Every structure is written in C-alpha cells, then in structure tokens.
C-alpha cells in the first residue's frame, strides 16, 4: 500500500510539487495536445514511415514486399538518379551565389535612410508572395523563343533565337531565373534585419580610426553580418536543392521533365518514379527522398562545421 502511494506521489511530483503547479502542468498538456498529436500523426509518422517504405518493393497496387536494402543498391547504380543529382547541384550553383550577391547588394543600398525606401523594398519583395506556379508561367513566356519578352529585348543579338526552353543546354537558366527572382526579396529581408542589428558605435569607432568606406564595409559590416550570411546561405542551398514547381511548370508545355530529362531535378525524379512512370515504385521513390534528405543534411552539417572559420559570433552568442 505504501509502495503504491509512494509511486503515485512520485508520478504526481513529476508534474509539480504542489496541487496548483500540478493543475498548471495539466493545463499545459491539454493546451499543447491538439497540435502536438496532429503534428505527430501527419508529419512525425511519415518521417518514420519513410525508412520503412524505402525498404520495400511497391507499386502502390499490389501488396508491398520487403526487399531490404535493394532499393539503395539500385540507387547507387542508377544513372538517372546521378543525372538528377548533377542537375540539382548545377541549379544550386547557379542560384545560390546569384541570389545572395544580389540580395546583399540591395539590402546594403536599402539600409541607407532614403526617402521612399519602403516602396522600393516592397518592389523587391513582391515576387516572394506570388505563387511559384504563376511566376514560372510568366517566365516561361519571357524565355519563349520568338514571341517571348527576352527574345524581343535581345532581338538583334545571337540570343534572339536561342531555344531556352527546349535545348537541354539552356533549360536550367529559366528555372534558375525564376528561383533567383523569387528569392532575392526573401534573402534581402534577412540581410536587412542583420544589417540593422549592427551597432552604430562600431562604424563611429572605425571612422575615428581612419577607416574609409570600403574598410568599414570589409572590417565591420562583413564580419558583423556573417551570422546572417551563414543563415541565408544554409536556407538558400536547401531551397534550391528542393526545386520542383519551377521545373514542373516550365517544362510542362513542351516535354515534361525537359528534353532528355534535362530539367529533372531530384524532387522531380522522385515525383516521376512515384506517380508518373509506367513502373511506379513508391519504395524506390522513398529511397530517393531519403538520399536527397541525407545529402542536404550532409551539406548543412559541413557548413555548420566550417562556419567557425568565417562566421563571427560576438561573445555569448556562440551557442545560438
């Protein structure tokens, strides 16, 4: 009897030492329950399921078969997967530096107290809120040979009859263009909030020490901004690694996935294997998803490891 009472009081004490604190703990649990249960069921469970599905041979109709690591063995030798990975990496290479440089430039200029900078900031940000689908439709038209905006602008040069949308050599440029265009505003906002957090004292001190404008940028702004730059870079790489909507919409009008699969990004490949191909394979697509996620995770971890060589944290901020 005393044992049971002891256990009960132990358990109760977990929730708090007094009846009042226990009631508060109960309230807390009740409040978080709906969202937590929902998140677990609709997002946590699929995360766990991914591992299990990736070990199966399953076309979605016949019952699933456990085949161990076979999907991953196929993956290692799959040329299409390797092509998709190359295309995705190329896209990351095109978009991330471009959007970061442009966004940083705009943020630096918009950080100057100018009249009407709210309006300008809006102009740079508005592509962020438009749907990627609509934006990609517009950009498909821009890159359309002959009738598109771009070919009209460059009408007299050799670019005029370039087949941006059907030539495997060029198809990634329209996709990268939409991505950069939609991403500049987003990165700019992060850069701006980073710039505004730099204390003015540092610039005053640098000026007194005789630093010119370039030196103030190089030795005050850049190091103080490096945590923001790091964040922007991590987010931008992840975003570009997951590109799907742009590739889907831009190639939908001609050859879905691009001529000779030239626009088949990793996500697109996964989508194709799971929902489009003649021989659907949900298990294999899951393996692709896992591989994609593992690569993103690896890249992010490498960035985290390397950041201490170039990211400057002020004392006390280091663990953040």
């Amino acid at each position, binding site marked *: 009897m005393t044992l049971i009472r002891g256990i009960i009081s132990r358990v109760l004490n977990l929730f708090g030492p007094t009846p009042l*604190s226990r009631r508060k*703990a109960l309230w807390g649990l009740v409040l*978080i329950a709906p969202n937590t249960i929902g998140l677990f069921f609709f997002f946590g469970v699929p*995360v766990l399921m991914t591992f299990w599905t990736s070990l199966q041979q399953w076309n979605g109709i016949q019952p699933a078969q456990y085949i161990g690591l076979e999907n991953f063995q196929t993956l290692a030798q799959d040329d299409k997967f390797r092509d998709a990975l190359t295309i995705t990496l190329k896209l990351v290479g095109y978009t991330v530096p471009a959007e970061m440089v442009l966004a940083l430039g705009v943020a630096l200029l918009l950080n100057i107290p100018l009249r009407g900078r709210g309006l300008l900031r809006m*102009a740079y*940000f508005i592509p962020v*809120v438009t749907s990627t689908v609509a934006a990609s439709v*517009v950009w498909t038209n821009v890159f359309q040979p002959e009738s598109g905006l771009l070919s009209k602008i460059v009408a007299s040069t050799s670019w005029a009859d370039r087949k941006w949308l059907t030539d495997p050599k060029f198809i990634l440029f329209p996709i990268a263009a939409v991505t950069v265009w939609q991403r500049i505003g987003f990165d700019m906002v992060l850069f701006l909030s980073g710039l505004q957090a730099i204390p003015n004292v540092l610039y005053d001190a640098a000026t007194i020490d005789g630093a010119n404008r370039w030196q103030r940028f190089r030795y005050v702004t850049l190091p103080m901004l490096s945590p923001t730059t790091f964040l922007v870079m991590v987010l931008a790489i992840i975003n570009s690694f997951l590109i799907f909507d742009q590739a889907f*919409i831009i190639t939908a009008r001609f050859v879905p996935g691009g001529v000779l699969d030239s626009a088949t990004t990793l996500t697109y490949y996964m989508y194709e294997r799971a929902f489009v191909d003649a021989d659907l394979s949900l298990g294999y697509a*899951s393996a692709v998803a896992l591989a994609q996620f593992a690569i993103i995770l690896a890249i992010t971890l490498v960035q985290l490891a390397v950041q201490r060589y170039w990211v400057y944290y002020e004392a006390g901020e280091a663990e953040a």
Partner: protein
Amino acid sequence: MNIPLIPVWMASHVVAAGLGLVGTRILFASRNRSPSKGRILGLVIGLVGGLTALFLFWLALAYMVSTRTWAHMAAGVEPPLFSYHPARLFAKPGHILVYAILIAGAVVMLLPFFWMASTACKPPAETNRVPIKWLPDNPACRENVDLLYEQSPQFNRYLRNSALVTLGRTFGQFVTCSLAAYGFARFRFPGRNIIFALCLALLMVPFQAIMIPEYILIRDLGWLNSFRALIIPGTFSAFALFLLRQAFMQIPLELEEAATIDGANPLQVLWHVTLPLSVPALAAFGVITVQAAWNDFLYPLVVANSQNTRVVTIGIALLQGERRTPWNLLMMGSLVATLPMMLMFLLLQRYFIEGIAMTGVKR
C-alpha cells in the same frame, strides 16, 4: 543675400518641360513624315528629354540648397525658410546614384508583373508582335476572361477550392497553434522541452522528404481527392507554433497574472489578454500562412488532383500543360490567381516582412 529659391525651382520645371517638348517636336517634324508615329515618338522623347532636363535642374538646385543650408549651419546662422524644401532629398550627392541603381533594379523585378498584366489583356493577334508593346492596341481584358472560362470551365471552382483550403488551414492553425504556443510559453510540464525540440525538428524536414509516406497515409485514411486531405494535415504547423510562442513569451507576465487573480482560467487569459496583445505576430502568422496555403502546389498535386478538389495552382499547371493554350489566357489565369495575394501583400506587407525577419522561414 536670399535668393527666392522656390519660384526659381518652379520656373525651372516649366522651362525644362517646355525645352524638352519644343526641342523634340522640331527634331521629329523634320525627320518623320508619318504624322501619328511622329507624334507619339515626339511625345515620348519629349517627355524623356523634359524629365531629364528637369532632373538636372532639380539636381543643381538640390545641391545649392544643401550647401547653402550647411553653410548657414556652419556659420551658426538660422537656415533660411526653404530648408524644408523637397530638394533636400538629395542631402548627400551620392544618394542619386543609389536611387538610380535601386529604381533600375526594382523595374527589373516588376517587369514580369507588367508583362503578365499586359499579355493578359492582349487579343491573340497581338501577343506575338515583334517590337515590344506594353499597352495593347485593342485591350481585350473582358474577352480574355471569358475565353479563359471557356477553355477551363471549372476555373471558378478551382479558385473557390483554393479559398476554402486557405481559410480552413489558416483558421485551423490559428486554433491549434495559438493554444499550443500558449501552452509551451507559459506552463511547465514534464517533457516540455523535449516535445518542443521535436516539433522544431519537424520544421527542418522538407515536405519533399516525406511526400511519399504522406501520400500513403492519406490514401490509407481514404482521404485521397477530398478536402479533408487538403485541409486537415495543414491545420497543424511547427512554424506557426514557433512564431506564436516567440511572440507570447514577450508579453509581460504581470498582465496575465492580473487576469488570473481576477479569476480567469487559462483559456480566458489567452483570449482576453495574450491574443489581443500579440496582434502583430498574429498578423504575420496570418499573412504567411494564407500565402503558403494559396500558393501550395506539390502537396495538392499529389493527394487531390481530381476535378472536384483541384486548387487554382493545379488549374494553371493544367492550362500550361496544354500546348495549344494561348499565352494571353495563361497570363490571365496567372493574373487572377496572383491578384488576391498581391492585394493582401500591398495592404499588409509590413507583417510579411516582420514575420520572415523574425523566423527566417516562410511557410
């Protein structure tokens, strides 16, 4: 000596505009025989010339005003009355270059929107014209809307579906996430930090990584091609939880304690004290959630791509997939689908930007 700068400044506008117009009229009268073409070109060049001249006048005056004001201040003399003058915009000469760069960039960013609106209102015959025309000769906005509905008879239903999904998800997230955020922000219970960390970990998992099991889950629930699939999973969010928790934690505890002492239970405190005090964060949450739900594409494509439950992004993708669809209709469709979000952004842009600056995420 006090030069009457304002009259001089105003006069310079008139002179500059006049010079520009007269000059170009003379130029084009001699070179161009076609009267209507000559008139339009003359007008355009006249405007450009006039504005440039005006800009130069303005610049010179701005420089004069600012140096004069600085001179007065350096001498310890009261600056003259016109120190409020609009020309003081260019307090620093370098700002002109900054404006030039920023405005050029902004025009490039906005160009696709202009192109979308312009093409959406062109009759089919005008979409392929070679010199770029921003304004159609025969605007056909109404006709194109009608043609769009002819080509895609269910387009209104797609719009309605998108609206329903957006409202459902936003309202659902508002309920579940404000409750949960309040629970995490203000109550101690065993496992609080671990559960919160797990929720945040979900934020790191992109949808692409769980797309296939999510599809299987929805299928096993029998929810494929239903609004339940589109709305219910979207009513739970780690992002909103994180954003609202941050906001709730910044509210002074004393206010909530005062309400508790007056006999309010936690739900009443949340409703009457915490939520009214976090309106900016709620607005940020609202606009970001609405935007993400309205623009969502991959998830609806996977779980609900049937006639009755199709959302507007998929509707547009279908139009795009038909190679015959004329561009003006596609652009009209995109315009219709973009307008609600653009209007919301123009009204509430502050909250968008604050929300992103606060969290670094946008969904």
